[in-house]
C-alpha cells in the first residue's frame, strides 16, 4: 500500500514539472500564463523556428513547478546559444508583473521557485529568453535544441527544431535604430558600487569609460546606435564630452583632449567593439558638444569674438579628428535647447517660430568657414524638426543635412521625406520605447515604419532611464530599453525583451531589403505591410490635414493629434504576432528567391 502510494506521488510530481516553449512575442508571467498585453494572440506553443544565417533566432522557455522547490534548467544547442533569466517587474500602477530585463545565466542553471530575489508571491513559473546565434558560415539545414528540466517534482524535456535557411542577413542595417540619452551622471547613479570603489575620481576612472563603452556595445550588438548628448539646456558641457578650453576671443583654444579621447577614441576607431559578435567598427554617429555657449561664449554672440572663438576651436577639432583618422563617424552639429528653458532666445530643438531659422543659417555659415572644404572628417548638421518641418526642409536645404522628424507630423508629409532623401539628407523620426504593458510587437512598429516610409532610421528619445526602482516599483520602461546589471553582479547594462524583439525585427528588415535586387521594393513593402496587420503601405501615412496650410504657430497639439488619428487607430490594433507574420513572409520570400 505504501509502495503504491509512493508511485502515485512520484507520478503526480512528474506531471507537475513542466517546460513550455513560447515564441518570442508571447511573454509569460510568474504564474506561467501569457501576460495580459499579449493575450490577443492564440497561446500557441512554439513548434519550430526558421532563421536566416548571420542572425539570431529567439524563443522563450517557461519552467513551471506545482510547488516550491529547486530545479535545474539545461539548454543543449549545436549553435552558439545564450540564456537569460527573465526578471518579473512589479508595476507601480497596478501591481501586475511583467517580464522584461534579461539576466544572463549559464546553462545548466540551478535555481528555486519562487525566486528569492524576484520576490513574487506564489511564483510558479520562471521564463528564460534563449538567443541562438546562427553564424554566416552555418550549413543550412535543421538543428535541434534540447531543453531539460530537473526537479524534485520530476523531469521534463523539450526539443525544438531550428531550420537554418541559406540566405545570409546583411551586416548593414537598412534602418538605424538610435537609443538616446543625456549626459553621464546617470552612470554614477546606476553603478553606485563601482562609483564607491573608484571614489572621488570615478568620472575620470577607466571603470567609468568602460561603462560608457559597455552601453555602446549592448546597443551595437542589438543592431542599434547609442547617443549621449553631452551638454545642458544652458550650454554647460560635461568634461568627457568636449576638449578642455582656455582663453577668450582670438586667444580661445583647446588645451587638452584627455577625457574626450578616452571617451570617444575607442568608439571612433571601433576598438570598443573588438570583442563583439558584429566585430570592431567605428560608431556611425555622435553628437558634437557645440551649442550656443560652447565653444564660443554667448557673451560675444553677434560680435566678431563669437566667430573667432567658434572658428578657432572647430578648426582644432577638425584637425584632431583628421590626424587621429576618426573619419568614419558622422559628427553632429546639433542644438537641443528650447527657449522655454530660458537659456537662449531661440529654439534649437523643434523650431516653432520661423524667425529662429536665422540661427541655423548663421551656424551653418560659421561652420563652413571653419572646416576645410576637403576635410575627410564627416560633419553633419542635424536638426530635430516638427512644427515647421515643411518650411525648414526648404529654408534650410543645403545647410541642415540630417533631419530628426516628429513621426506624427512627418506622417502627412511624404513629399518632404522624399525631397530630403532625394538631396541626400539623412532622415530619421523620433518616438519613445513602448511600455512593457503594450503588446510585445509594438516595438517593431518603429523600424518597420521607417522602412516602409523609405527613411533612414528613428530615435528612441531616452533609453537608459528605468526609474529609481525598476525591479519592484516599475514605471513600465517607457524611457528604458536596458537596465543596470549591478543588482546581478554585472558591471554593465543588461538587455530587455523589447530590445531583443526590436533587434530581430531589424535583422529581418535587413534581409527583406536585400531582396530588392530581385523583387520590386513596392512589392516587398506591400507584402510585409499585409503580413503585419493587413494594411497597405499607404495606410502608414496620414492625409495632409487642413492645419498644414495654416502657419504652424497657430497649430495646437490637439489638432496634430487629430491629424494623426488614422495611423494611430490602425496601430492600436497591432497584434502580438504581427512581426511573426512579417518574419514568416520574409523567410518565405528569402527562401523562394534563392
Amino acid at each position, binding site marked *: 500500500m505504501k509502495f503504491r502510494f509512493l508511485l502515485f506521488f512520484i507520478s503526480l510530481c512528474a506531471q507537475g514539472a513542466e517546460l513550455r516553449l513560447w515564441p518570442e512575442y508571447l511573454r509569460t508571467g510568474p504564474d506561467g500564463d501569457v501576460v495580459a498585453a499579449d493575450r490577443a494572440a492564440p497561446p500557441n506553443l512554439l513548434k519550430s523556428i526558421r532563421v536566416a544565417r548571420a542572425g539570431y533566432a529567439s524563443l522563450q522557455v517557461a519552467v513551471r513547478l506545482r510547488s516550491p522547490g529547486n530545479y535545474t534548467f539545461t539548454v543543449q544547442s549545436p549553435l552558439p546559444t545564450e540564456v537569460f533569466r527573465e526578471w518579473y517587474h512589479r508595476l507601480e500602477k497596478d501591481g501586475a508583473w511583467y517580464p522584461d530585463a534579461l539576466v544572463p545565466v549559464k546553462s545548466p542553471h540551478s535555481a528555486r521557485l519562487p525566486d528569492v530575489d524576484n520576490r513574487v508571491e506564489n511564483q510558479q513559473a520562471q521564463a528564460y529568453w534563449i538567443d541562438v546565434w546562427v553564424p554566416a558560415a552555418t550549413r543550412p539545414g535543421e538543428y535541434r535544441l534540447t531543453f531539460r528540466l530537473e526537479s524534485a517534482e520530476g523531469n521534463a524535456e523539450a526539443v525544438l527544431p531550428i531550420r537554418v535557411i541559406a540566405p545570409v542577413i546583411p551586416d548593414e542595417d537598412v534602418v538605424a535604430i538610435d537609443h538616446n540619452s543625456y549626459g553621464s551622471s546617470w552612470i554614477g547613479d546606476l553603478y553606485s558600487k563601482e562609483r564607491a570603489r573608484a571614489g572621488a575620481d570615478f568620472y575620470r576612472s577607466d571603470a567609468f569609460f568602460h561603462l560608457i563603452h559597455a552601453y555602446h556595445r549592448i546597443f551595437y550588438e542589438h543592431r542599434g546606435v547609442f547617443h549621449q548628448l*553631452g551638454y545642458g539646456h544652458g550650454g554647460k558641457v560635461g568634461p568627457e564630452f568636449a576638449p578642455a578650453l582656455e582663453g577668450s576671443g582670438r586667444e580661445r583654444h583647446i588645451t587638452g583632449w584627455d577625457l574626450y579621447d578616452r571617451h570617444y577614441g575607442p568608439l571612433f576607431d571601433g576598438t570598443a567593439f573588438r570583442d563583439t559578435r558584429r566585430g570592431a567598427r567605428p560608431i556611425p554617429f555622435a553628437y558634437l558638444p557645440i551649442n550656443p555657449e560652447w565653444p564660443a561664449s554667448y*557673451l560675444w554672440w553677434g560680435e566678431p569674438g563669437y566667430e573667432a572663438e567658434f572658428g578657432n576651436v572647430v578648426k582644432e577639432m577638425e584637425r584632431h579628428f583628421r590626424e587621429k583618422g576618426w573619419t568614419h563617424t558622422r559628427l553632429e552639429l546639433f542644438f537641443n535647447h528650447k527657449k*522655454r528653458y*530660458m537659456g537662449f532666445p531661440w529654439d534649437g530643438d523643434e523650431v*516653432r517660430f520661423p524667425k529662429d531659422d536665422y540661427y541655423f543659417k548663421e551656424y551653418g555659415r560659421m561652420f563652413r568657414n571653419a572646416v576645410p572644404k576637403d576635410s575627410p572628417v564627416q560633419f553633419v548638421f542635424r536638426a530635430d524638426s516638427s512644427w515647421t518641418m515643411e518650411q525648414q526642409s526648404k529654408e534650410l536645404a543645403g545647410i541642415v543635412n540630417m533631419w530628426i522628424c516628429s513621426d506624427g507630423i512627418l506622417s502627412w508629409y511624404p513629399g518632404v521625406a522624399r525631397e530630403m532623401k532625394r538631396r541626400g539628407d539623412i532622415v530619421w523620426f523620433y518616438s519613445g520605447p513602448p511600455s512593457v504593458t503594450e503588446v510585445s510587437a509594438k516595438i517593431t512598429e518603429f523600424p518597420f515604419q521607417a522602412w516602409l516610409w523609405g527613411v533612414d532610421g528613428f530615435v528612441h528619445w531616452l533609453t537608459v532611464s528605468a526609474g529609481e526602482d525598476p525591479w519592484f516599483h516599475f514605471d513600465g520602461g517607457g524611457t528604458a530599453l536596458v537596465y543596470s546589471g549591478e543588482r546581478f553582479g554585472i558591471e554593465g547594462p543588461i538587455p530587455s525583451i523589447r530590445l531583443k524583439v526590436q533587434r530581430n525585427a531589424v535583422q529581418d528588415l535587413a534581409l527583406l531589403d536585400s531582396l530588392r535586387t530581385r523583387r520590386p521594393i513596392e512589392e516587398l513593402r506591400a507584402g510585409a505591410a499585409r503580413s503585419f496587420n493587413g494594411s497597405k503601405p499607404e495606410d502608414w501615412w496620414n492625409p495632409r490635414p487642413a492645419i498644414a496650410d495654416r502657419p504652424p504657430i497657430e497649430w495646437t*497639439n490637439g489638432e496634430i493629434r487629430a491629424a494623426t488619428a488614422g495611423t494611430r487607430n490602425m496601430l492600436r490594433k497591432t497584434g502580438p504576432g504581427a512581426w511573426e507574420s512579417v518574419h514568416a513572409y520574409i523567410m518565405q520570400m528569402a527562401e523562394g528567391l534563392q
Partner: protein
Amino acid sequence: MRYALWLALAAALAAEDRFTQQLEETARVASVMVDGDVCRRIVTARAMEYMLRTDPKDRFLAGDNYDVNADAFDSVKKTLIRLSRLVPFPADANLWMPIPGLPGKVRIVIRNANELSQFWPWGALYQNMEPEMKTVLETGRRVTVARKLGWVSALAPVRDSLGDIVGLVEVAGRRNPDARENVK
C-alpha cells in the same frame, strides 16, 4: 594639533564667508547694471498671454508658445554673464520677474550656463513666489538665501527708469560644484 585644527576650521569658515560675500557683492552690482526697462521687453506679449492659459488637451500649450524678443534677451543675458564672471568660481546670475495681475507668482526669464538656482523647478514657466523674493520685490532690500545645503543665492532688485522694481537677479553658487550636474 588642536591649535592647527582650529586654524583650519577658522580658515574654512572665512573661505565660506568669502564665498557668500562674493555672491552678495555681485548681486549688489547687478542691481546697478541690469536695465529694468529692457527686462520688461524680453518676453513677448503673445507668450505672456499663453503663459497663463491651460488646455487639458494640450499640456504643452504655454511652453510651445513661449517666445522672446532676442535683442532684449541678449542685452540682459550678456550683462548677467559678465556679472557671473565677477566671482572666481562657477556661478550663475538669473533674472526673475513677477507676473502682472498675478500676485504671488514669479517667473524665471533668463538662466545661464551652469543652470544654478535654488528656486527653479525644472521646466516651470512660472511658479509660486518665494518669501525672500517677495521681500526683495516689495522692499528693494537684498536678501541672501542658503536654503539648500552648500548653496547660496544672493537676491537683488532690478529697477527701471522710473525707479520701480520690475524684477530681481539671483546670483547663485554651490560650494561644491558638480561638473556633470545639469548636463542633460
